[in-house]
């Protein structure tokens, strides 16, 4: 493996600007790595080789001409989750219904990446329409966890997380509706950030649940995530739910945190997220992380958020309800898969046959759940009640953030489970997002930073740090401080302990 693929994004960008290495060389090294290991990992659904090299070349031209870098990440390769529109490349959302569909426009996130000189290597695998916690719901095959190829890389953004852990890309974009950035980050030993809802444009993000979906950065270090965060965030008039406010100073916070001092920072441990259902090795790693935060000067208090227990059921009413409506457009009339159009069948029959053939079981399950929850006579009991729970959860957060600066919990109750282990048990699968869902419902910021390996199975564990809305920088500061202390205590970066992949 080329050493270039082991470097973090900040380092790569600096070397490119210093002309120690060209962006084309960096991109080629990652394309080579993808060619070598992706048959095994299957993080990518599409590799955009030519345009990636073109984009890298443009950065090199800037460097050669002495033009200032267009961003601190110019020339750094990135893996884009296949739920974000990218003109001229397939955007499938992991679904047969959109196989081969190419959007005629770029998502705002995609556009911002291009404008920042970030090199988009290709599109990554995901659970179909971002519904799942294992990437097993992709219509195009499962992605494997580089830490253990028999295990899932998390989901829905398993492709993006696995690409980082397999050194196929130093940066990736995920989307997080109920934990789809953070949970894959936790189980692959990478950093995953869900920014405050409304701070990263959803324009061009194929909607699963509009009121919850949020794109965010994935990286191997906290600083890289922060650098990427500042590239993609910011007000977008094309997204009405986009907040017109300055991007929180996350890079500065990451740098401040890296000095290793958390004196005066109040950290709340969510008492609801412990006990039964939590893998002992996960609990132990989490407790060790909390101890480390205390050593860094943070004040640790226990905080109860009783409504968080209701988050999972509320989520499984709101998200499917919105999804049932968002996914209605996939009807074979204008684009995408079309089944049964034999000149005899009616439009209605073609719609029905297409949707039957084009959607996977989990997507159908959620469409049915959501359709039911929104039906006349059930709306108040289901969708209406779930919205009330959402308000209760926001109040719990509000009360908690009155006492502490950030809240912490394990990101997910267990380490990566085995492929196939939970496919027939939706409830077990859904519980993977138990701790991440509250921040989606409340719309605040949350991230997952690796906190060591579980003592019982040697797999990565994630520490979740939750911050108030628009206070994303608080989480970055704590995460960066913790990252430094963790690596110091463990004698090096956690990600370097990922097993070598067999190169084909």
């Amino acid at each position: 493996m080329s050493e270039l693929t082991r470097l973090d994004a900040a380092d790569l960008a600096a070397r490119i600007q210093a002309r120690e290495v060209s962006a084309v060389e960096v991109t080629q090294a990652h394309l080579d790595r993808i060619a070598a290991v992706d048959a095994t990992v299957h993080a990518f659904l599409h590799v955009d080789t030519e345009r990636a090299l073109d984009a890298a070349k443009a950065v090199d031209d800037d460097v050669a001409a002495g033009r200032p870098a267009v961003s601190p990440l110019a020339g750094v390769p990135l893996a884009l989750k296949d739920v974000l529109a990218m003109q001229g490349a397939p955007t499938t959302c992991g679904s047969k219904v959109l196989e081969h569909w190419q959007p005629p426009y770029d998502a705002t996130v995609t556009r911002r990446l291009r404008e920042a000189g970030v090199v988009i290597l290709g599109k990554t695998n995901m659970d179909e329409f971002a519904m799942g916690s294992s990437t097993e719901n992709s219509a195009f095959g499962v992605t494997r966890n580089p830490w253990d190829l028999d295990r899932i890389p998390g989901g829905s953004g398993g492709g993006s997380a696995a690409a980082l852990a397999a050194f196929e890309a130093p940066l990736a974009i995920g989307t997080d509706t109920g934990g789809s950035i953070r949970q894959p980050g936790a189980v692959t030993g990478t950093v995953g950030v869900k920014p405050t809802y409304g701070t990263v444009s959803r324009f061009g993000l194929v909607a699963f649940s509009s009121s919850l979906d949020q794109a965010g950065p994935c990286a191997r270090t906290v600083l890289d995530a922060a650098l990427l965060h500042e590239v993609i965030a910011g007000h977008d008039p094309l997204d009405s739910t986009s907040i017109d406010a300055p991007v929180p100073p996350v890079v500065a916070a990451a740098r401040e945190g890296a000095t290793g001092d958390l004196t005066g920072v109040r950290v709340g441990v969510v008492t609801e997220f412990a006990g039964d259902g939590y893998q002992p090795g996960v609990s132990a790693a989490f407790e060790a992380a909390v101890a480390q935060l205390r050593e860094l000067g943070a004040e640790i208090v226990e905080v109860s958020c009783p409504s968080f227990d209701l988050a999972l059921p509320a989520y499984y009413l709101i998200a499917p309800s919105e999804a049932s409506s968002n996914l209605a457009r996939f009807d074979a009339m204008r684009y995408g898969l079309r089944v049964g159009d034999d000149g005899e069948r009616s439009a209605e029959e073609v719609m029905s046959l297409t949707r039957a053939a084009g959607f996977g079981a989990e997507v159908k399950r959620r469409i049915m759940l959501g359709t039911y929850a929104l039906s006349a006579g059930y709306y108040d009991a289901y969708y209406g009640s779930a919205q009330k729970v959402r308000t209760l959860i926001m109040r719990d957060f509000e009360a908690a953030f009155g006492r502490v600066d950030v809240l912490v919990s394990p990101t997910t109750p267990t380490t990566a489970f085995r492929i196939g282990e939970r496919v027939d048990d939706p409830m077990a699968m859904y519980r993977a997002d138990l701790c991440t869902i509250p921040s989606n419902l409340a719309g605040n910021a949350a991230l997952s930073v690796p906190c060591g390996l579980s003592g019982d199975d040697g797999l990565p564990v994630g520490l979740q740090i939750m911050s108030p809305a628009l206070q994303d920088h608080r989480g970055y500061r704590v995460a960066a401080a913790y990252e430094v202390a963790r690596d110091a205590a463990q004698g090096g970066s956690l990600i370097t302990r990922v097993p070598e992949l067999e190169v084909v």
Partner: protein
Amino acid sequence: MTTTVALMDYADVIARFDPVLGLEVHVELSTNTKMFCGCPTVFGGEPNTQVCPTCLGLPGSLPVVNEIAVESAIRIGLALNCEIAEWCRFARKNYFYPDMPKNFQTSQYDEPIAFDGWLDVTLDDGEVVRVQVERAHMEEDTGKSLHVGGATGRIHGADYSLLDYNRAGVPLIEIVTKPITGTGERAPEVARAYVATLRDLLKALDVSDVRMDQGSLRCDANVSLMEKDAPEFGTRTETKNVNSLRSVERAVRYEMTRQAALLADGGSILQETRHFEEASGTTRGGRRKETSEDYRYFPEPDLVPIAPSRDWVERLRTTLPEMPAARRKRIQEEWSLTDLELRDLVNAGAVDLVAATVDAGASAAEARSWWVSYLSQQANNRSVELGELPITAGQVARVIALVADGSLTNKLAREVVDGVLAGEGEPDEVVDRRGLKVVSDDSALYAAVDEALAAQPDVAEKIRDGKVAAAGAIVGAVMKATKGQADAKRVRELILERCGG
């Protein structure tokens, strides 16, 4: 499909039943861009040329609210004496249909922007009926389907369908009345007058083209009957495809007679959507609505709530124009019109045109005469609305001025107007090209008179003998020779002069 439908005599319907109306009017706003994207809204473009990812509902696209549309909605609400919501949201109305790109319509449900208003409607005899307005809400239009083949022109049974999404996403305001009761035999008339009044109001607000023939104003007429003294409303039908004011009246009347016959026969009314057939003036059954369709409404999560500040609302209130009813009253006084004259003017749809013609310098009486009689006839002949005639108020005013200064006779003036209507240009150009100027040059007329007298010596003789009445034949001949451009009165004078009179 041709089954005989029993109808009850209208007088019998009224004797036995009370009609209840509910009118839903959809108004396409004349904003430059669509409700949720920047595509143009121009009518009549090549199919699928005014579309973008958002109005095509492409994956990942998002809506952004058109502020001008919200402003129009508020102004319409204010003009209808509605309350304006302090806070309201859009909602998704979910149902599958190929002309709806997202398979949901972004609309408003239980939080309309305007509610609880009224509109006073004046009937032909001056009776005023106050129609209560339940709500006016914002939504987006669907695309247009053309179902080719099959017997009904509907999607079922069609060979194939063509879809045009140019209209998809055009801003619509839906104005819904409360049940209109107690109008008895005048129900069809009230329905028509309500839509007409609403149309005039929207036109005055300058928020829509309000062209029923182009679909920028559409009316769905809900009609039910209840036995006299019945405690509850009867089952209603909703008639669509009512594309003219006349059709509104006919559709309501037809439904009343159809429903009455069914009910009198012990039958029951099917709650359904019916389709108005313009040619026959009848309605035919369509989509059944026995249980109201479940649209699974929920608040649109892609849009933020709309909270019009009271300042904004009050500012918009000051932009409301003089309302048509008040204006009519003022005009009646200013132009000294009788009630009958005013009604003719209103019925001809000529108020604005006459006012504009007066503004262009014509007298009210002349302007009114032109628009209400000659031009109304022309519009009738062409089966278009008066305002659609290809002549402007300014052009009519110019013709009136030419008559006033003696350049044109009334007969010639009509020819000039015909020329303008035929696209021959401005009135003065038509006069030149057709050579229609009154011949007032006596030398030219003398020649024509002499020629005519020479051609009919016997008649000339009679005139010389004092049989002045015989001059008519010579006048006719001169007028013929001058193609009607001579002033007949002057011709007569010259004839008598020549004959030594």
